[in-house]
């Protein structure tokens, strides 16, 4: 057996339907070039993969759902047949999952302040996180902002966070949400997430405290865009904490 064969292959997928997937892939590729030559990661061989259709999900250890327009992504996922298998994988707990901005909307079990009916289609979310997310919470583009934040339970300190028409976590769901309303949707839950939701970071806006980063077991959600800054610490933390730890447990 060669040295190469003894390594555990870690493949992190990036949902590449629309939005900032190129940015996330670039971040992973830079990070993985480092890790693949780092002695402390010598047991692993890392690579990143575009995820566009169901077969791209095979063999993943982690998946990132990127920033973009959540309605566009939801429709394209439904049309391409990726929606069902992706929802199953996210909720299964078998892979580390990270949603940024629109990606966070897509992995929530409840979304408010949203369109529900889209012509012959519905706005549907994949689910996985027991939280309620409000879309465009901070207002429109002129209200977009950047802020330096640190994160509970993580080594990431003083990270520049870019919020663009960002959603926030408005509630942690203690029980299964009721059915959707005119302006809210509820995800179909196949498998319950048995971990509790931890708040990793909050911001103060107009006298209100808003949750902008959460974790529930294998799932990480952030309302800002670590893929837009030249800083790879957040991606590294995701790989260390959500992808590798799980692959060891499994």
């Amino acid at each position, binding site marked *: 057996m060669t040295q190469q064969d003894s390594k555990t292959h870690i493949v992190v997928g990036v949902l590449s339907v*629309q*939005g900032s997937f190129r940015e996330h892939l670039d971040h992973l590729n830079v990070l993985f070039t480092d890790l693949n030559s780092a002695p402390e990661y010598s047991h692993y061989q890392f690579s990143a993969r575009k995820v566009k259709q169901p077969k791209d999900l095979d063999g993943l250890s982690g998946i990132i759902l990127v920033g973009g327009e959540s309605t566009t992504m939801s*429709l*394209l996922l439904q049309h391409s047949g990726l929606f069902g298998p992706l929802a199953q994988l996210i909720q299964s707990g078998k892979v580390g999952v990270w949603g940024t901005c629109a990606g966070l909307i897509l992995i929530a079990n409840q979304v408010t302040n949203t369109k529900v009916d889209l012509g012959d289609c519905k706005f549907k979310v994949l689910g996985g996180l027991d939280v309620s997310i409000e879309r465009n919470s901070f207002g429109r583009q002129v209200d*977009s902002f950047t802020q330096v934040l640190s994160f509970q339970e993580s080594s990431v300190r003083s990270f520049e966070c870019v919020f663009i028409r960002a959603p926030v976590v408005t509630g942690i769901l203690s029980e299964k949400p009721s059915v959707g309303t005119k302006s809210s949707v509820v995800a179909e839950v196949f498998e319950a997430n048995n971990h509790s939701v931890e708040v990793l970071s909050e911001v103060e806006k107009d006298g209100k405290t808003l949750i902008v980063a959460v974790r529930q077991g294998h799932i990480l959600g952030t309302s800002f*865009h670590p893929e837009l800054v030249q800083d790879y610490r957040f991606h590294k933390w995701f790989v260390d904490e959500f992808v590798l730890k799980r692959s060891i447990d499994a």
Partner: protein
Amino acid sequence: MCASDFQKKAGLAQMLKQGVIMDVTTVEEALIAEEAGAVAVMALERVPSDIRKEGGVARMSDPHMIRSIMDAVSIPVMAKVRIGHTVEAEMLEALGVDFIDESEVLTVADRKYHVDKDDFKVPFVCGAKDLGEALRRIVEGAAMIRTKGEAGTGDVSEAIHHIRKIRSEIDDVMANCSVLLENPNDKSGLQHLKGFSEKFRVSEDTILELVRNAGKLPVVNFAAGGIATPADAALCMRLGCDGVFVGSGIFKSSNPAKLAKAIVEAVHWYLEPEQILKASFDLGEPMRGIQVSGLKEEEKLSVRGW
């Protein structure tokens, strides 16, 4: 302006990547666009083909119409101002639109200066038909570039020409100036740098920045002007664009809802001919269109701006 301000402006453009932005003139059209999967809509009173037909001075649209579209959809809303019309831009910023298009489709307001876009919190997209124009707009603070194409014609040839021109000019810069990365004093490299700086009317630093960035523009680049079919949209994507604007093409066709969806699918699957084909069945009549080659120079919108 500080870097983080630019970052969140350019960042919104990055979120629109691999998406379709559609021209809409009413709330009903905006809803059709959103339902089809548009990543944003451009709210305007008359689509370019009507501006072309009806003539007269084309200005910023009625703020009431723009506001009603902003209220109706959850996706970003863009609106157009005349080239150089700082006050129209200030009004749109006050209205709260998500993106301003400083557009050659409207009548030019200032024949010498474009809007100083760095002064604004709201991001701008600007048209370009060559690399010089793209770089000058970026220096002024544009957060997104689109090709000018020839709006309102349904003829994609001008957009393709602009995409290819920008590409080949970047290749030319890279071929002649990359040497400066290793040897900043290389004589021939410096001579070419000076030449490009004069040709494109930007500083040598701006050109060097492009070289350092491996020939990639620092902002997102969309295709626009004359895109009328799913195949047109996919062709622009194939040539390296980050996404497409569709103006008159959708709502001047016989089945806008279906065509809008098909164009979204084609941009998503631009590398897969079978998928583009599948999306292109039974779309009805596309917009009638006008051949760009039959237009007189003064009838072209793309010659507006500099």
